[in-house]
């Protein structure tokens, strides 16, 4: 393998990994706050893609469609939390997971009812035409995905470190009772965490749509996002980001070295290895137990 191809694979792996990182981030945020693993997260990517499709059909420019899609994702997340999740919050964890799974299936089936499984395409103003930089072919669409994910991670880092709501989320993730005693409106925090998570999912949808087209299966990334989150550490936002990028790179390079069949196997082998050797992932921490 030449250096040019190795670098080319690096770009390809990072762009695939950025999408995994986005969905993994969206999984980790509500999990940190409420302990609920949202199996419908992939379908929020789908919601984002179809929202962008509808808004584009109205003739809106991409720079209006982009924030509008994220806002739609946010609102849908807030509504689902308020209407469904909050009402079943006291149910066993397994019930909650099944509930999110069911929400995902409902969303996907509802989309199929109207749009069926047709393949749709939307444009974005960035060119599809690749350009060469130091011998490496670069697709502007990839740069856009990598740039958006990196910017999002920076914004989230600032949000959790500096903003009152971010601090409240961190407090709630440590102890809901403690946070409540400090005057934090825990339910509002949980609802916001869902909203942020689904908004990130919607962002993933609008970023993916021009690259692979839109159909109801566009959000079928949940398993890969779970692997990314486990590699990074399920309660760590930087972990989800790094885990996603690592998974993308791992897939791309393992495919190049070991062929396409092993490419699909290696991420799940890595998942098992991580669970055995480092169950809290690269950045996760084992919960402290007071003796």
């Amino acid at each position, binding site marked *: *393998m030449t250096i*040019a*191809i190795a670098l*080319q*694979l690096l*770009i*390809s792996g990072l762009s*695939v990994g950025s999408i995994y990182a986005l969905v993994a981030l969206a999984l980790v945020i509500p999990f940190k706050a409420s302990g609920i693993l949202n199996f419908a997260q992939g379908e929020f990517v789908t919601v984002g893609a179809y929202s962008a499709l509808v808004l584009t059909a109205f003739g809106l420019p991409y720079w209006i469609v982009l924030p509008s899609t994220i806002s739609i994702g946010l609102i849908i997340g807030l509504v689902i939390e308020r209407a469904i999740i909050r009402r079943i919050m006291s149910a066993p964890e397994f019930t909650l997971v099944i509930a999110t799974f069911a929400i995902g299936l409902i969303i996907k089936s509802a989309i*199929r009812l109207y*749009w*069926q*499984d*047709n*393949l*749709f*395409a939307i444009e974005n103003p960035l060119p*599809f*035409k*690749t350009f060469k930089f130091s011998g490496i*072919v*670069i*697709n502007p669409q990839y740069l856009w995905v990598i740039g958006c994910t990196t910017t999002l991670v920076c914004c989230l880092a600032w949000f959790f470190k500096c903003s009152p709501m971010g601090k409240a989320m961190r407090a709630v993730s440590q102890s809901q009772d403690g946070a409540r005693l400090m005057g934090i409106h825990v339910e509002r925090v949980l609802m916001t965490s869902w909203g942020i998570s689904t908004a990130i999912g919607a962002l993933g949808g609008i970023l993916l749509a021009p690259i*692979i*087209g839109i*159909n*109801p*299966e566009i959000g079928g990334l949940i398993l890969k996002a779970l692997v990314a989150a486990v590699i990074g550490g399920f309660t760590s936002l930087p972990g989800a980001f790094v885990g996603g990028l690592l998974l993308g790179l791992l*897939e*791309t390079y393992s*495919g*190049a070295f*070991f*062929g*396409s069949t092993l*490419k*699909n196997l290696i991420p799940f082998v890595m998942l098992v290895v991580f669970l055995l050797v480092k169950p809290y992932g690269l950045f996760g921490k084992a919960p402290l137990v007071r003796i």
Partner: protein
Amino acid sequence: MKHQFFGRVIAALAISLLSNFANAQGVTKDEILIGGVGPITGPAAYIGLGGRDGLAMAIKEINAQGGINGRKIKLIFEDDGHSPSKALGAVKKLIDQDKAFMIFAAGGSNSTVGFIDYMKEQQKVAYVSFASAPAVTFPFNTYMFRGATTEVARYGELYSEFIADGLKAKKVAIMNGREEYPKNEGNALAKTLQDIYKVDVVARVEFNIGDKDFTPQLLDVKKSGAQVVAFFGNPAEAAIAMRQARELGIEQKFFVGATMVDKGFTNVAKENAEGATGFSLVPFLPGTQNAALQAWETKWKAEYPNLPAGRPNVFDIMAYTDMYVLAQAIKTAGADLNTQTLIANLEKIKDFSPSPLASPITFSTKHHIGNLNLTVMEVKNGEWQPIGWKPTRPSEILKRYE
């Protein structure tokens, strides 16, 4: 009194038996029930959705003109999910439960192969519009007909002649999906390239349906030094593979299977599709500047106003025109419509083209491969356009039936 009673019972039984004899399953004096099957969910939905909608539109038009010999056509369409087992389940439901007269198969090869044996057992006609799997028509069997598409062996003949003589390639790489249609087309091309044209297949790589990364396969292709890359899969897969090929510095020409010679592919692949070649199963693709096609597209858009830019696709056209081929045979079968009369009248179809949109269809008592004619096209300025290349080597596939 007693004699009268028995007389009436015998008369009633006789009438009942006679009426059963006269009316085949799914055929009444005013209706013919056709079971449709194809993938309307999943990665191959672009095939079944086009098939279902084209078929439904033709049936609506036929019924609006009074039906065929006074009988209206009723369609029940089932999803096969592009899976052989689901397709078998759907066909069993249509034949056993809904009591359909026959099956119109609007699915790909992967699902269609699932119910071929069942249709033979049931001795019911299956009219296959899209599937190229050899088992549909070879070895010959009475009940299976292949309409607008052709048999995979014919694809092999045409593809190899075009790649060897038209594109003048000496080294070819083949990328194909692991399911029925792409695998069969890859095999047919490899065999004819090597056996007839002595062209080297320098790389043969496979992928899974729905894959979104083709880097490993493309690296093998790049290493092989192939002059042409032949790709058999679905449009979404081809679009990603061609984009990644350009990124990896693979500048060779792509030749794609017939299912990708459609707007659905160029819409997603965009600039990366430029220069790709492939064979079309219909003379004009949707979007072409042709009066007959444009009139048909206007009708189609009035029927389905909310569907995406890639529709109507080639499958809409093929199912639509194939329904008219079927209607012709049903019409000539007359009032006594049953499986045997339908087969006999389908076998009389010769060079029948219900509209300029369709390639002419011919069946005989020796073979049921309706179409052997395909048109070579190339993507120019984002559109598939005919390039005028014609094959010179006569087809040998019909010799197998002699």
